[in-house]
């Protein structure tokens, strides 16, 4: 009877399905985008290959939001600590002309010592102040190659090399150029530190904290986890807002759909009541119809989310959309919840209808 009821009103059923699917897509894609960006950035930073990340006091974990620096000479003091294999300073800049892109200003030789070097696709390292090395994803997204000019932070740079992605940033310039552009000569935003024995990370961190009180010192393997959205209150608020809006969309559409359904089927409800169907039977029937719509809509939404994520990442290769089983479960729960809330009033109204009046309804 439920399937027949849904098939009898195909347009309304389709619209309801799509609304629930939209609700699920909204949640999964937006949350996936925020989580994906955070997660991917975190993994790329971990991909530098260092064991420890050192930042000046009052720095943000989000390198794009951090503009504090520390004297590069500090590394001489760090080199005296046992177990330090290599230290490389990095000065970060943010290019905001087309999205938010982090640029690493690096010392090639010490960066290589920490990261085991770039994997080259094309070209070479910078040997001029306005040279820039880009990763393969950036090159594909922007359609640039060796010899092309790009504008970063209001400066023109020439692409001198393309490397494999995954070493922190997507754009690399010389440390000296980065320092001059930021007016931070002799300083760096952070140090990547490699140890001779990675198992000594906790000990080394303790020693660095004793040496440099107040500085931010974290094991790099923790960085990706810390970057995940549930560690960031502002992002949590954003995600909660998106989820709330999606839930409201679902509730309103389901409410409208079920309300018009029970109005149109007043006579049918009267027939069922005359056959001896209880109020509980009527309420259950309406809820089952809503559940069918929400379940099917959720499934369509999940499938569409994966498809949309693929399309977005194909069109914008620098973006990552992370759709996790945890959020798929939550999205389905939200879809069902919106169905329950949206169906409650219409179902109770249907059940309360007087059978005699319902049968006389035209």
């Amino acid at each position, binding site marked *: *009877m439920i399937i*027949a*009821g849904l*098939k*009898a009103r195909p347009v309304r059923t389709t619209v309801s399905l799509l609304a629930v699917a939209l609700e699920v897509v909204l949640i999964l894609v937006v949350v996936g985008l925020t989580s994906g960006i955070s997660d991917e950035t975190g993994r790329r930073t971990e991909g530098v290959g260092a064991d420890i990340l050192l930042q000046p006091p009052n720095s943000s974990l989000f390198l794009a939001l951090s503009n504090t620096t520390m004297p590069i000479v500090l590394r001489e003091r760090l080199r005296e600590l046992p177990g330090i294999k290599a230290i490389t300073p990095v000065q970060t800049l943010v290019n905001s002309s087309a999205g938010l892109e982090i640029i690493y200003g690096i010392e090639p030789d010490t960066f290589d010592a920490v990261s085991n070097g770039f994997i080259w696709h094309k070209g070479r390292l910078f040997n001029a102040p306005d040279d820039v090395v880009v990763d393969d994803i950036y090159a594909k997204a922007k359609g640039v190659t060796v010899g092309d000019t790009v504008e970063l932070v209001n400066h023109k740079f020439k692409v001198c090399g393309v490397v494999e992605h995954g070493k922190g940033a997507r754009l690399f310039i010389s440390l000296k150029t980065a320092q001059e552009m930021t007016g931070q000569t002799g300083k760096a935003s952070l140090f990547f530190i490699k140890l001779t024995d990675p198992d000594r990370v906790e000990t080394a961190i303790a020693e660095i904290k004793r040496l440099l009180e107040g500085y931010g010192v974290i094991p790099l393997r923790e960085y990706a986890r810390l970057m995940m959205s549930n560690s960031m209150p502002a992002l949590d608020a954003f995600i909660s807002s998106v989820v709330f809006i999606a839930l409201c969309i679902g509730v309103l559409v389901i409410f409208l759909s079920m309300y018009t359904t029970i109005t149109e089927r007043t*006579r*049918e409800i*009267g*027939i*069922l*009541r*005359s*056959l*001896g*169907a*209880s*109020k509980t*039977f009527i309420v259950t029937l309406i809820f089952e119809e809503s559940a069918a719509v929400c379940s099917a809509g959720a499934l369509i939404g999940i499938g569409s989310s994966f498809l949309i994520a693929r399309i977005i990442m194909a069109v914008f290769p620098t973006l990552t959309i992370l759709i996790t089983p945890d959020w798929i479960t939550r999205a389905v729960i939200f879809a069902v919840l919106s169905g329950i809330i949206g169906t409650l009033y219409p179902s109770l109204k249907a059940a309360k209808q*007087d*059978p*005699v009046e319902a*049968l006389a309804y035209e």
Partner: protein
Amino acid sequence: MKTLLETAGLRKVYTAGKIQIEALRGVDLRIREGELVAIMGPSGCGKSTLMHVLGAMTKPTAGKVVIDGQEISGMGDNELTRIRRDKIGFVFQKFNLLPTLTARVNIDIARYIHGNGVRSNGHDQHLREILRLLMIENKMGRKPSELSGGEQQRVAIARAVANQPAILLADEPTGSLDSKNSEVVLNMFRELNRKFRQTVILVTHNPELAAFTDRLIEMRDGVIVGDNDSVSWDTEGELAQPAPSV
């Protein structure tokens, strides 16, 4: 014979805005098991209201209504629903089949609501006999829109008797049919009554329909004005006293 339906001093008052309409003004009635009864009267005489009360679709305003030994005046909605489900089968003028479902599913819905979803051999056998009697065995896969008026009404009758109710109530069952189909349907009611001892109450304004029944009760202005019942109430014991107004 066992009394299936009994009313004493039955009154029903509707409120329409500020106006009170007294549809039934003291109806005393007794219907026995196995009877084929017509309740006849002009439009507005209260016969449909009487049917709704006898069918536990609505409660009386005052008076006593006993359906198969159960007094319904003080019952709540759940109890009335149970009475409807267990004791009553309805046939309506406009058939009232569920339009999106096949004839088979329309009948199955009634059985499902009754709790006969798990089929027993006895029930299936009874239903097969009913479908054969009503000549709709080969129409079960069709939706109401694919059936003629007469066929739809016969499906409605099958739905109404599928659970072997104590009482079959039919409100103007031939009102939407032509004369040929009307005769077929009325003969079906008589067959149900004769073959299965189904108690049938037909509500109608059509005097020709009365010829198909064994007993005619006439109504006018909310009261019974005629009853050609061959059995005297006195032979069945005391007349039930009307209950105080509700």
